[in-house]
């Protein structure tokens, strides 16, 4: 931050000096009035192309010094049309009249198959201000939308390069897959692959009425993204370049324990309580040696860090290092850069838009960095064929490559590296060989699981390639002024290609020993390549009729059809024992020691098709009473014939109270609208089973079974579980009530929505059948869910005078909340063993109550023998409870700690401790501009939500999870209970107690509230005065700083500074254990950029 402040201060000084040098030698003054001849206060009067200007006083007057000769003034005021006035050399007095701006009334919003005037909307549609997104340095559009739209929830699930968040509109929508439909220029696409600089506008459609025209795919909201297009500029091209460079660094602390002594001491202490002996074989003498070096940040020649000694009859390296393993393996700061360029232009017959972008992000891995690169291209052309036909084409191409060393996923590598690398161990021995197996570890464990070898040797070259190509051709026919017919066809092909390479590695255990080889797991010599290709064909044909009758009755009718076909095919191949360690190709697969060539292949394909006929009628009377009905008759291949088609209607009404005559005189009021909608939508997206209504025979490889025949895994075939052939749509019926309010020339805006969504007939397991049935009860449409919520957004913007110059500022905030209740589910006993029960609030966390730690052994013994039988939780606790252990509370008073009947009515000693879903989501944006400077700050956060740390999450638990942590929280032992230090947060030290012991029982003491407030973005920019930049041929030039994820505040920070609350929340979602307990850290991004337009 200090660096930023310094740079900003310098900028102001330099620019101020330049501005002052501008010759100003005459005065122009005057009054600014509105059409009613009332003075306008706060109007800005600027000399065009400069920062010289004034702001009108309450009586509407202004006065400013201008250069001699003719000048051009720009007069602007919020709510009024900006005027440009030429002031001849001799004129010194002006009376300027500004006209009210009707633009706001004319503002349109993209809706399904068309646009609507914003004031006439009756559904819940939020348009995103894409200007605010332009400076965001987040690497993809999805993540940029976090906090930008109330009710749109973006969960960022990983911090590694190339990862993007997931989207959800209005909370828990279904217990099945329920992502919103994302359409880019009308075609289903992946939002994270869109070049954010291409985006013209984004509409988030939240309620059923506005989404109904998309029928079966829109049950859980629609996000419409429209990209920029060429425009009629009389043949002149506009080129815009935007480039920025900077770096990223973790949002959390990486200040881990680097002192060998404390690392060994802590790990041994935790290990010994569980295993009865030390994890390391360091002797007492060794510990003294380590202690002697505890403050040596670098090796002191008098106290070498590696000593050769004879132990147990052979030469051995004894390591006394203070190694900062984290920073040996990873960089805190790593560079990023982003470039984009676009060219737009055209005339009235042909318009074009061309853009390209490149984004390069280095990851944290230090030795051979992981690098993510992304390319975007878009080309749009729009040509008038004749008087009533226009043809356009829109091509986009996306490509990304993530190159990284290590096992199958970078998350896994990160997790594996975080074990067994004690600070006392070096990465390499004095002879240059890698440290891997060492007799200083008593068990059969290996330092960092060899991941430093993997990173360091660079033989594990993994690559993930993604390409996405889409081309749309559209014909628009306008035979009459009131009717437009549009037909388009889109072809999209996208592919992911992955390469996973692993190779043997060698290490040395003893100074006088030969090299040893590691040849399985991450050390297996193998290459796997997979390709998955998806194709989509989409056709839309629709017509729109729009007319106004008798200047009062406005009617718009839209109708048409949509057909889409999607298919996917995947191919995978794996070979072992490659002939080269540096080349990665399946041609190089060779025989193993016994002469066998080991290869594996896999395949698979899926397809679905949809078809829909849709229509919408909008009617308004003098823009005062608004009506809309729409519907779609939709078919999908994902159900059995006879169940494929559904009709999804919706209707909505709006009343613009502000247009009523009784409010006509309230001049301060710009808009007041009440609206209500109801709609009924279907969901055909039932997860990755595209043929859920069919029983299929599939042939698979066993996960681990062989008949010793050949060199491949055994195979088996299986018949899919019995199915309900009558499967059909999930439906979501939604009610939405909204208010839009704008006043004081739209300075104040407010929107509120409340909604209820009933998700009916969710596809879930049917009535329970006796187990002798031998299969899961076939899925049927058998559960209902109710979600209720609200969304608020409030904005204020204004322009005032600051130091004689106009200062524009705005503040906007949004807030949303929801709660979801299961209203129908087949669980009559309300058993907690089943996922849901009627009346259940989604996200509830059941757990025990703990009211402290035992103070003495006697208290522990007495309590657990006389008050509460705690045998339920003492799985790893032979010897019983002692001082420093958790004191559980006997909630049900039966003297035995337990889970009762495991039902809601008899949960034993558990109760609902909290809810894992965020109770509020909010965002606040502040912005200001003055004298060419612009500033914006964006905060985003959540209200209370709870998380019980996953057992293996040792950024929280430290050595209570796996004791042998590589990245041990610095000074962790100070926070651990001991007789001398009894008032700690954490209990008696014991390895594995969070993975299988008392800490693994969800309880109130360690439940975390992970609400957070995040300083999501700060942008500070300066636009160079146009009359300078024009001299060097630039229309506009702006330099800026933008920082993303700059800081966060969360109650979690009190207990760990190593864990970002967002990552905490996501890591406990049943992903593979290895990933679950350690996540690639979340990054903040700091970048300096320049935008040039010419």
């Amino acid at each position, binding site marked *: 931050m200090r660096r930023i402040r310094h740079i900003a201060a310098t900028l102001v000084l330099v620019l101020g000096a330049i501005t002052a040098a501008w010759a100003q030698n005459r005065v122009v003054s005057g009054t600014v009035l509105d059409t009613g001849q009332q003075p306008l206060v706060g109007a800005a009067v600027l000399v065009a192309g400069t920062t010289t200007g004034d702001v009108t006083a309450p009586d509407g007057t202004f006065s400013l010094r201008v250069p001699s000769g003719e000048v051009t003034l720009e007069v602007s005021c919020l709510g009024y049309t900006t005027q440009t006035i030429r002031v001849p050399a001799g004129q010194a007095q002006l009376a300027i009249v500004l006209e009210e701006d009707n633009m706001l009334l004319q503002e349109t919003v993209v809706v399904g198959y068309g646009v609507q005037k914003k004031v006439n909307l009756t559904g819940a549609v939020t348009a995103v201000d894409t200007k605010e997104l332009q400076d965001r340095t987040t690497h993809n559009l999805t993540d940029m939308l976090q906090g930008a739209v109330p009710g749109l929830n973006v969960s960022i699930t990983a911090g590694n390069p190339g990862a993007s968040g997931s989207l959800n509109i209005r909370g828990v929508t279904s217990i099945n897959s329920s992502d919103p439909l994302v359409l880019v220029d009308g075609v289903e696409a992946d939002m994270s692959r869109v070049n954010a600089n291409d985006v013209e506008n984004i509409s988030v459609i939240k309620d059923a009425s506005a989404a109904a025209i998309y029928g079966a795919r829109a049950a859980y909201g629609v996000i419409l993204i429209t990209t920029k297009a060429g425009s009629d500029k009389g043949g002149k091209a506009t080129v815009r370049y935007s480039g920025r460079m900077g770096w990223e660094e973790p949002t959390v602390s990486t200040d881990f324990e680097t002192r060998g002594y404390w690392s060994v001491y802590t790990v041994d202490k935790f290990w010994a309580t569980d*295993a009865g002996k030390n994890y390391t074989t360091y002797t007492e003498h060794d510990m003294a040696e380590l202690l002697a070096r505890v403050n040596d940040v670098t090796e002191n020649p008098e106290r070498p860090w590696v000593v050769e000694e004879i132990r147990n009859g052979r030469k051995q390296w004894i390591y006394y290092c203070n190694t900062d393993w984290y920073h040996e393996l990873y960089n805190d700061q790593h560079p990023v850069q982003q470039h984009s360029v676009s060219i737009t232009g055209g005339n009235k017959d042909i318009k074009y838009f061309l853009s390209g972008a490149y984004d390069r992000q280095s990851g944290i891995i230090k030795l051979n960095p992981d690098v993510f690169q992304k390319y975007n291209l878009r080309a749009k052309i729009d040509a008038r064929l004749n008087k009533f036909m226009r043809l356009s084409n829109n091509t986009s191409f996306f490509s990304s490559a993530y190159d990284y060393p290590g096992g199958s996923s970078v998350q896994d590598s990160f997790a594996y590296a975080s074990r067994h690398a004690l600070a006392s161990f070096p990465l390499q021995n004095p002879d240059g060989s890698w440290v891997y197996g060492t007799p200083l570890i008593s068990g*059969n464990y290996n330092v960092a699981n060899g991941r430093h070898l993997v990173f360091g040797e660079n033989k594990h070259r993994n690559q993930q390639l993604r390409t996405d190509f889409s081309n749309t051709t559209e014909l628009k026919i306008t035979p009459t002024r009131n009717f437009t017919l549009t037909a388009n066809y889109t072809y999209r092909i996208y592919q992911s290609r992955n390469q996973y390479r692993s190779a043997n590695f060698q290490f040395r255990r003893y100074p006088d020993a030969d090299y040893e080889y590691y040849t399985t797991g991450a050390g297996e010599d193998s290459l796997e390549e997979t390709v998955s290709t998806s194709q989509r064909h989409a056709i839309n*044909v629709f017509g729109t009729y729009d007319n106004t009758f008798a200047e009062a009755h406005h009617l718009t009718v839209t109708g048409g059809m949509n057909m889409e*076909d999607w298919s996917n095919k995947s191919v995978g191949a794996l070979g072992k024992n490659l002939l080269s360690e540096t080349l990665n190709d399946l041609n190089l697969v060779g025989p193993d020691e016994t002469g066998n060539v080991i290869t594996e292949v896999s395949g698979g394909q899926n397809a679905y098709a949809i*078809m829909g006929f849709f229509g919408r009628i909008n009617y308004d009377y003098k823009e005062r009473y608004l009506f809309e009905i729409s519907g779609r008759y939709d078919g999908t291949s994902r159900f059995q014939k006879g169940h494929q088609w559904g009709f999804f209607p919706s209707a909505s009404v709006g009343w613009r109270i502000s247009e009523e005559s009784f409010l006509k005189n309230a001049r301060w009021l710009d808009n007041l609208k009440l609206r209500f909608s109801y709609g009924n939508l279907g969901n055909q997206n039932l997860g990755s089973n595209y043929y859920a209504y069919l029983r299929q*025979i599939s042939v698979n490889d066993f996960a681990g079974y062989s008949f010793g025949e050949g060199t491949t895994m055994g195979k088996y075939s299986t018949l899919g579980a019995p199915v309900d052939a009558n499967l059909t749509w999930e439906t979501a019926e939604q009610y939405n009530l909204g208010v839009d309010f704008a006043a004081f020339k739209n300075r104040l805006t407010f929107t509120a929505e409340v909604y209820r969504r009933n998700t009916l007939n969710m596809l879930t397991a049917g009535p329970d059948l006796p*187990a*002798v049935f031998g299969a899961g009860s076939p899925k049927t449409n058998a559960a209902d869910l109710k979600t209720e919520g609200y969304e608020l957004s409030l904005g204020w913007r204004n322009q005032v005078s600051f130091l004689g110059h106009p200062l524009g500022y705005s503040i906007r905030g949004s807030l949303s909340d929801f709660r979801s209740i299961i209203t129908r589910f087949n669980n009559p006993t309300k058993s907690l063993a089943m996922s849901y029960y009627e009346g259940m609030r989604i996200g509830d966390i059941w757990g025990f109550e703990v009211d402290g730690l035992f103070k003495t052994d006697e208290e522990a013994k007495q309590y657990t023998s006389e008050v509460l039988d705690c045998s339920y939780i003492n799985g790893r606790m032979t010897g019983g409870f002692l001082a420093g252990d958790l004191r559980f509370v006997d909630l049900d008073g039966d003297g035995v700690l337990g889970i009762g009947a495991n039902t809601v009515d008899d949960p034993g000693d558990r109760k609902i401790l909290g809810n894992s879903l965020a109770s509020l989501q909010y965002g606040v944006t502040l912005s200001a501009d003055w004298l060419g400077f612009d500033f914006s700050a964006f905060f985003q956060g959540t209200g209370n939500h709870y998380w019980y740390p996953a057992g293996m999450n040792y950024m929280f638990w430290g050595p209570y999870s796996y004791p042998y942590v590589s990245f041990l929280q610095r000074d962790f032992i100070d926070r651990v209970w001991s007789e001398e230090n009894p008032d700690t947060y954490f209990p008696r030290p014991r390895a594995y107690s969070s993975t299988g012991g008392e800490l693994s029982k969800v309880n109130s003491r360690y439940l975390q509230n992970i609400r957070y407030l995040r300083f999501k973005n700060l942008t500070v920019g300066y636009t160079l005065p146009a009359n300078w930049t024009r001299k060097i041929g630039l229309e506009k030039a702006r330099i800026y700083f933008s920082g993303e994820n700059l800081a966060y505040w969360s109650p979690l920070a009190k207990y760990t500074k190593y864990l970002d609350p967002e990552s905490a929340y996501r890591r406990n979602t049943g992903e593979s254990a290895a990933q679950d307990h350690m996540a690639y850290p979340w990054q903040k991004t700091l970048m300096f950029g320049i935008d040039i337009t010419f």
Partner: protein
Amino acid sequence: MKRYIIPAIALLIGLTSCNWLDRTPKATLAPENYFRDETDLQLFSNSFYNNLLDKEPYEEQSDHYVHLNLSNVLRGGNNRTVPNSGGGWGSGSGAWGDLRKMNTLLEYIDKCEDKDAVVKYTALTRFFRAYFYFNMVKRFGDVPWIQDQLGTDSDELYAPRDSREVIMGHMIEDIDYAIENLPSAVSVYRVNRWTALALKARFCLFEGTFRKYHDPAQHAYMYVVPLPSGAHDSAYYLGLAADAAKEIIDNGPYKLSADYLKMFAGPDADKGEWILAIKNDQSLQICNNSTAFATMPTQGCPGLTRKFVASFLMADGSRFTDQEGWQTMQFVEEMTGRDPRLSYITVTPGYIRLGDTEVSAPDLGSSVTGYQLVKYVMDSTLPEVGRVDKSYNDMPVFRLAEVYLNYAEAKAELGTLTQEDLDASVNKLRDRVGMPHMDLEDANAHPDPFLLSEEYGYRNVTGANQGVILEIRRERGVELADEGFRLTDLIRWREGKCLEQTLVGMYFPGAGQYDLTGDGKPDLCLWSGTDPKHKDMVDKEIGTDTGVILSGGASGCLDHHQNVAHVFDENRDYYYPIPTKERQLNPNLKQNPGWNDGLSY
């Protein structure tokens, strides 16, 4: 304008009239097109192996063998509860889901045109159906017999349980069909005729001894569905068991392996002795955890119990427990001059692990009783085997030694055992390890008081063959240690009370230094008071969780489970409970005796 609209409408109609929404799977098959040839049948039946066979038999705890944490079965009492669902009575793999697969295959198998394959895979499937039902009978007693793929409205879903006589009858039909029709060539990783015979011997011995010791006349409560009149008696099943075993002994292509230890610790199944095995394969990463389990301190710390160790004979055939003071004998002395199999099963003084060159002392940190496991511990020089889940030795399912033991036991229980029978069976096991022969007359003349004692032995063995039955049980425990037989044996013998017997380990007379390798140098120091902090031996504090807990406080046997009650309810624990939810869904299911699931019916 019309010239555009009309073709457009024509196009629309054209597109919609073709079956746009028809998308059939292209990477999977429809059942109608499957089950057509031998490959289809084999692939479909392959999952029976994976789902039904126990891949880690050494994990089963009993009175012979315990972990750091006792299983709920061992602890008994309130630690065993009626589950809401699952508990071996689930609908998925490992339970009724497998039966459904078998019945599915049997339903569709006639679609195959290769009729030899139909017979072969019918036989294979019926083998596994018998295997499946054996597991269910062991666990639950009476179960419903189902031989069809059920629909959501099938009556069988709500049927009561069938008596074990009915189930056994069907199992014998199935296994006899399998014996008749499976190939007889040796195939250690695939089921053949000999596997079917071995299974028949195993489950008929089970049923024969079960009916004998849980005599329906005295223990009627064990037969929730009463046996029908005319039900077979124990002799019938014992006879079938003896016959099936005899067929393998007389006509089977199997012979005992020469090396007891390498048979389990070596990478590959012994194709001479093993009838069916589970293939593990390092290059395919099909592994088990046996080595790490026995040698790492984090994997459960398994150990033999002192009682079991004491049951091993001396190398000269005499009884260890006949010696004065055996109860307080220290490790080196205790282990000297014993049945050689003791040193193949547990770490004894002078133990050198396969591949090692130096002697290892038993690791008290890796074994809760101090009697650390050896049987499946692979050669230390093999790459990776010491890591968790990286052992790749094959696992036995059926082997000839068990057939011998089953034969001898069936004959002994029938009362028709001869010395020739013993010589043709268990004495071959004795020969392999150089132990003196078991003598029928001598055994019956001198029943072992240790094996009859309430503290260490069996309660229900009586009759003329009492002595030899005890000896056969001893032999069975020794020979089949860690192979997952013990709990089932106790159940069929009605000897559940054995689980209440002592679970302690090595004996130590108190604080001091101990030599555990027999080289005269101490390896272990037990202390109390001040930590001696030795550099050349392991120090353990007496009486602490992290050190050692001794049965007598300051002295005694390692007694990690000192405060852990382990009780066996004779009126309940021979069966598992039916899950509560299942009884709610099907009120015709009666609960097993003694299990209170809170339901009023």
